[in-house]
């Protein structure tokens, strides 16, 4: 976390009470507007005076964006639903336990009380150079200070380093990708629904953005389809401290078994690349195979096949290999031969 060093810059505070109003305000103010959900990422940026929006649209008064609703095909979670609500919600705990587990591993209880699902998935990347406001690529400049050979990049990417090597840290996102969640956006052209993994942008497409939201767009809800409800889940977060820390890596898997073999699987990781990664190749490779240590080992090796470490984060390769293995074969089976 950057050092908070100043009071916030002046901005117009707008507090809509409906999603439609919020979207209209965002559209009206375009790139000058900043969307604030729980405020946990926002206040870092604002108090450090790295981001200086002219208008801040505070969504805390938009009740329709809060809460968990059952739908004909699963559940819909309002973007402003707090992480604590998700952790404790009975349907999510029972049917989509992986999301509940992931949300419970976010930061601290106080932060989970304030932080929202929409804010968690939309938070900016972690990189101290970028968050310090240095003129790096992501900050609009022409350099990645974290890159090899001398940048401090222990926590940075082993995949997808395309000028920027920062990683997307959201704990809930791998779980959402594993659950085949759909993100619901309200745009000036109407509602748009995208797959969880397609919500995020890598630096190869737009180095200054982390997701597909355009000025005027609002993430309103996240839908969890019933197709993966009650599946066999695995989630693991590895971090330096077991309380209140960003991940060194997250892994999440959802498996539907047929007997002893994997019938369907979705597998995702975060904090290994500038955007959360769904491991489609691994999913395809393990389908029809038993969920045992052999399959897990094969999956782990396949998952890291194209990994390229930076100067100080080579440890992430065996870490990811083991996590992917565990996500398939479980902790008990995860001992390497």
């Amino acid at each position: 976390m950057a050092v908070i060093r100043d009071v916030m810059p002046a901005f117009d505070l707008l507090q809509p009470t409906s999603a439609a109003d919020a979207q209209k305000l965002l559209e009206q103010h375009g790139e000058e507007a900043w969307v604030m959900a729980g405020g946990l990422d926002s206040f870092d940026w604002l108090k450090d005076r790295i981001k200086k929006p002219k208008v801040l649209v505070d969504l805390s008064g938009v009740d329709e964006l809060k809460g968990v609703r059952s739908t004909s095909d699963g559940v819909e979670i309002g973007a402003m639903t707090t992480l604590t609500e998700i952790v404790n919600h009975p349907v999510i705990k029972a049917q989509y336990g992986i999301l509940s587990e992931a949300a419970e591993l976010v930061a601290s209880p106080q932060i989970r009380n304030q932080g929202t699902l929409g804010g968690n998935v939309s938070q900016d990347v972690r990189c101290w150079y970028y968050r310090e406001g240095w003129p790096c690529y992501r900050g609009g400049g022409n350099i990645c200070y974290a890159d090899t050979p001398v940048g401090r990049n222990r926590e940075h990417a082993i995949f997808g380093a395309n000028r920027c090597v920062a990683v997307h840290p959201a704990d809930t996102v791998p779980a959402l990708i594993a659950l085949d969640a759909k993100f619901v956006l309200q745009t000036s052209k109407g509602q748009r629904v995208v797959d969880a993994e397609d919500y995020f942008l890598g630096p190869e497409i737009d180095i200054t953005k982390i997701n597909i939201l355009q000025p005027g767009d609002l993430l309103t809800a996240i839908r969890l389809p019933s197709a993966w409800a009650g599946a066999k889940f695995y989630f693991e977060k590895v971090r330096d401290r077991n309380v209140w820390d960003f991940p060194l890596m997250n892994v999440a898997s959802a498996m539907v078994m047929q007997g002893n073999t994997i019938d369907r699987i979705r597998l995702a990781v975060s904090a290994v690349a500038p955007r959360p990664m769904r491991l489609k190749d691994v999913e395809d490779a393990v389908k029809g195979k038993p969920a045992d240590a052999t399959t897990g080992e094969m999956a782990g090796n396949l998952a890291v096949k194209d990994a390229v470490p930076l100067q100080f984060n080579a440890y992430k390769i065996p870490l990811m290999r083991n996590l992917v293995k565990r996500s398939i074969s479980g902790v008990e089976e995860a001992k390497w031969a």
Partner: protein
Amino acid sequence: MGLIQWAISPWGRTVPIHIAWFLIWVCAIGGLTFMIVHALYVGIFARPKKFAVNDSPAVVAAIPERVPRHSLVARAFHWVMAISMFALLITAFLPKVGVKFDWVTYHWIAGLVLTASVLFHIVHASFFLDFWSIWPDKIDLRDAKRRMMRAFGKDAPPPDRFAKYPLENKFYHAVILLAGLAVIITGVFMMKRVNTGIFVRNPYLFGDMTWGMMYVLHGLAGVGLIALIMVHVYFGIRPEKLPITKSMIFGYMEKDFYLEEHDPQRWAVEGSSPSKEGPGLATGDD
């Protein structure tokens, strides 16, 4: 509104980071304006060309019906360079005007193709062709003055016909050479900062100021190339220049066009009389 975007480096220095991107539009509009003004001038105001012609029947008779102008190797270079240049401009500037795609890989690959083709051209033109044929000479400058005076209605003798390349062509070549070398040299260094598999990345190879200047030079030359390429394409499709364009495709130009625009004394073709300024007979691309 500055032409350059600046930032504060981690060490507190104000450093340039790149050009202001509105210059893309400035150059595009500049190129378009030039084309419109030129087309209006040629269509409405320009006087018919008049050259001093004094070809002996023997010289005319010696000119083949198809005058070789560009060898296959030279044409291949030109079109490879053209494709790489278009690829570079598209991959560089479309993302800046809102068309987002994974451009970096295509950009540096196109840049390598351009670099290789330009290196080849430098060696080819220096050692296998008439190096000086593309650079302005005294007659070009004298005739430029004559043409200018005649354009303004002043009394001046008619200029000689061109050598192999008109003066405008030679100036264009010089400008695009400068812009091209600027983007190539800076671009090669910039490859140290992206994943290429060729170089080991090292963003700390230079200081922030040096890198910034490099990015600014790359950007300025890049947006300049937008206007230069627009103008080049414009002249390539102008009716009176089509024989030259066709020669870049088929390798030769017709005898009539050659005798109309080019002086056999200044650009001698195979089978005609020797050049009075060149080293010998030409078979194209000398």
